[in-house]
């Protein structure tokens, strides 16, 4: 329903209470924990989610990632919107 395009540049994404990004020592990987759900998160997703603090806007997050990873802004923007759109549909991110 909430397509990637629907996320506005000045929305301030954050992990709602009850959703945690956790480094799991036993398995040596980053996981996103929610009620009854465990999502494995790859390195890119971890970098995106770490920045979803409810303060930074979407466009600030994209700028920051583009600067840090010296990547093309448009590509990063698509990645960020896709990930957050999917997670928002599962109610694992508030936009």
């Amino acid at each position, binding site marked *: *329903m*909430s397509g990637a395009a629907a996320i506005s540049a000045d929305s301030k994404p954050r992990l*709602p*209470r*009850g*959703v*945690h990004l*956790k480094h*799991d020592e*036993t*398995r040596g990987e980053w*996981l996103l*924990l929610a*009620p*009854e759900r*465990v999502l494995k998160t790859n390195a890119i997703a971890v970098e995106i989610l770490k920045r979803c603090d409810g303060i930074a806007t979407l466009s600030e997050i994209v700028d920051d990632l583009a600067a840090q990873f010296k990547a093309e802004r448009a590509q990063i923007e698509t990645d960020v919107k896709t990930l957050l759109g999917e997670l*928002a*549909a*599962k*109610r694992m991110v508030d936009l």
Partner: protein
Amino acid sequence: MNARETTPTPVPAPVGILAELTHRCPLGCPYCSNPIELDSRAGELDTETWKRVFSEAAAAGVLHAHLSGGEPAARRDLVEIVAHCKKVGLYTNLITSGIGITRERMRELAEAGLDHVQLSIQDALPESADRIAGYKGAFARKIDVAKWVNEVGIPLTVNAVIHRANIARAGRMVEFAVELGARRVEIAHTQYYAWALANRKALMPSRAQVDKAVAEVERLREVYAGKIVVDHVAPDYYAKYPKACMGGWGKRTLNVTPHGRVLPCHAAETIPGLEFWNVREHSVPDIWANSPAFNAYRGTDWMLEPCRSCPRKSIDFGGCRCQALALTGDARNADPICHLSPYHDKVAAIAATFDEVDANVPASDYIYRTLKTQVPAQ
């Protein structure tokens, strides 16, 4: 590839622990999944033992702790247990009927670090809900509890078990969950074992009712997408393949009873001859890796035909052991839900009993689940 087949696969780390803190419960739901033989209060594990269990579980790789019952709020040490789970890094989920939770206690639970609340509802109509629960005023109380959960900002899941007395409102319960402020709703059709089996005649809906309810809930899933997540457990009698029960036996979760027995699934005690270990005598990692009950149906080596040579054996693990036992007499058989099972006609016979149900006959008197607890003074 060949070399890998001969190496024994290490036991994967568990991801979830379901802790039945007590079997006491003020409600008496006739479909309760607790065993008919309930664990008495006298033999319940004490606070320190539960804390050790959660510490060991977390160290072994468990991520989610589900605090369940009975009614977990009947334990006076609930807040202390939640705080401990938080301390050892567990994601803590409270599965409650809401009875015994006060506004004050909800605040304390939130401060202790509770991550999520799963609140059961019996129906979307007050009178019917209270009759099903066998407890007057339960419905009104649950609405308050939902408010308090929202007040402290903890995400809420509402769950409803569907049977003849409430199936006409399966869809309404999705809407009701939205009204209660839930982010997730579980609509689960009754599974007929334990108390539900004893009450099957009164609980079982007709096939037409099931089909209608399933379609309505699926429709609402679309309507509310992005607003509420709908988890729907439809009856599997018409499926071609069984579900991977528990995500595989001894593969993901462990269940601890109030007296400390550790089970691969909460119905595992219906299988005779399994040896369960107790947390009073063994550590959680020891039980997970070595207890005979966990190893009995772990992996695929124990399988008989048709599962043994089936390409789906590591997808559904042959389905549910308890169902295989109940319908075929041997827990190692394929779950007869599978169309490849030679006992598949037994399932057809059960599905046919759906068709015999006359929905106009009111649900007969329930055998209410017992071992009630006093509700603490508000």
